[in-house]
């Protein structure tokens, strides 16, 4: 019933994402000039930062869907929360992989326990645990309830984690490294960044909607099996 419009939206987002990613690749590797102090490796920035923003957005969506699920008990919201967490973990992994690649040549270290990095890592751990919990529970309303509780608890934890690491940092000063990411981007760099942001955002929306559609279709197929009085095949 409501699968059709979602499917269409997923397709539109996918097409836009396609175009935007091609454009972003061109701009990052051809159009935008090399950054003077950091060199070519700075180009990671155009994928690293949008991925970080999108992963935070994904976890926020997981939180909202979890709250809404506990209020309405709609299966669709359970699916949305799970899909957002899955895709959020993917983008968060991208952040955690590209981060050290960028950091090593610039800061001389792969990793530092500063508030932003640490919070991202803790966030990744929380949502991997969330996905693991879902994997270890039998499907059904029970799983949806339990996962929603963890989805809410995990997200509420984020600001407290960030704050606690900031406090911790004041006790253990680390080399000052961050120059503030967006501070004084040149106009062509800012434009490239914006295109990348749109591309990654569209990719996220396309993946999220596609994931939700797949899950809804599976429900639908099982429903049809039931109507036809046939046992649905086992699914791994």
């Amino acid at each position, binding site marked *: 019933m409501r699968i059709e419009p979602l499917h269409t939206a997923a397709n539109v987002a996918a097409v836009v994402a396609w175009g935007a990613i091609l454009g972003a690749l061109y701009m990052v590797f051809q159009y935008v000039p090399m950054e003077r102090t950091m060199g070519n490796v700075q180009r990671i920035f155009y994928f690293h930062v949008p991925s970080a923003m999108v992963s935070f957005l994904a976890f926020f969506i997981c939180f909202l869907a979890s709250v809404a699920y*506990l209020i309405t008990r709609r299966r669709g919201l359970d699916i949305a929360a799970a899909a957002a967490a899955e895709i959020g973990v993917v983008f968060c992994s991208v952040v955690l992989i590209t981060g050290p690649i960028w950091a090593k040549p610039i800061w001389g270290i792969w990793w530092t326990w500063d508030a932003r990095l640490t919070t991202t890592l*803790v966030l990744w*751990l*929380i949502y991997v*645990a969330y996905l*693991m*919990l879902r994997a*270890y*529970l039998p499907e059904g*309303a*029970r799983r949806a*309830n*339990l996962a*929603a*509780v*963890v989805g*809410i*608890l*995990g997200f*509420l*934890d984020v600001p*407290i*984690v960030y*704050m*606690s*690491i900031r*406090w*911790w940092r*004041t*006790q253990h000063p680390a080399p000052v490294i961050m120059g503030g990411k967006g501070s004084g981007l040149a106009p062509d760099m800012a434009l490239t960044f914006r295109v990348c942001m749109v591309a990654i955002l569209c990719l996220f929306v396309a993946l999220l909607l596609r994931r939700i559609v797949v899950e809804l279709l599976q429900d639908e197929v099982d429903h049809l099996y039931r109507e036809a009085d046939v046992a649905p095949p086992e699914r791994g």
Partner: protein
Amino acid sequence: MVFLHQLFTIFMKDLRLEWRTREAMSAMLLFALLVLVIFNFAFNPDRELVLLIGPGILWVAFTFAGVLGLNRAFAAEQENGCLAGVLLTPMDRGAIYLGKWLANLLFTLVAEAILLPFFVLFFNLELTHEIPLLLLVCLLGTIGFTAVGTLLAAISANTRLREVMLPVLLFPIIVPVIVGAVESTGLILNQQTEGLAGFIRMLALYDVIFLVTSTLLFDFVLEE
């Protein structure tokens, strides 16, 4: 009144069960003692190093032992479907959470009280007037991780591999507790006061937020 009576009934039942079997306590104590001993071999710390890494060792011992206790807490409820039996009675769901949380808190605090002297002994620390502050930090830190831990133990009790699931869910969420407790303990052992109030306030804030949230969310954990 009825709520407190129900809470107390659950709490006393857990106390009685633990008194009978002493399963949680003995596991927690032995495990935490092992942690202290192993870390001693791993670092072979001198006096200066103890002041640096001692707080971390202590809280690793506390939280790992706490997880053992929390895992036990819902094992007895799963046996024979007792939790369902409790849910059949006209009782408040929040009272179940708070009763079980208080029992867990008490077990963990008792274990910590027994472990602290060993910690002082093993690492040759000299504590006098720092003790009240140290106890306060232990109390606040333990409230924090048992409050979330009781809720998450109820969740992981439903899964296969619940012994693994609980720490995987719990540890990322209690990062602020670990940071706060380890830092405060370190400051206290080094007889510094700068920044201490901030960490203690943070621990207290965490305790309040997660105790309230967990009480509210516990209803959904029990529902099928």
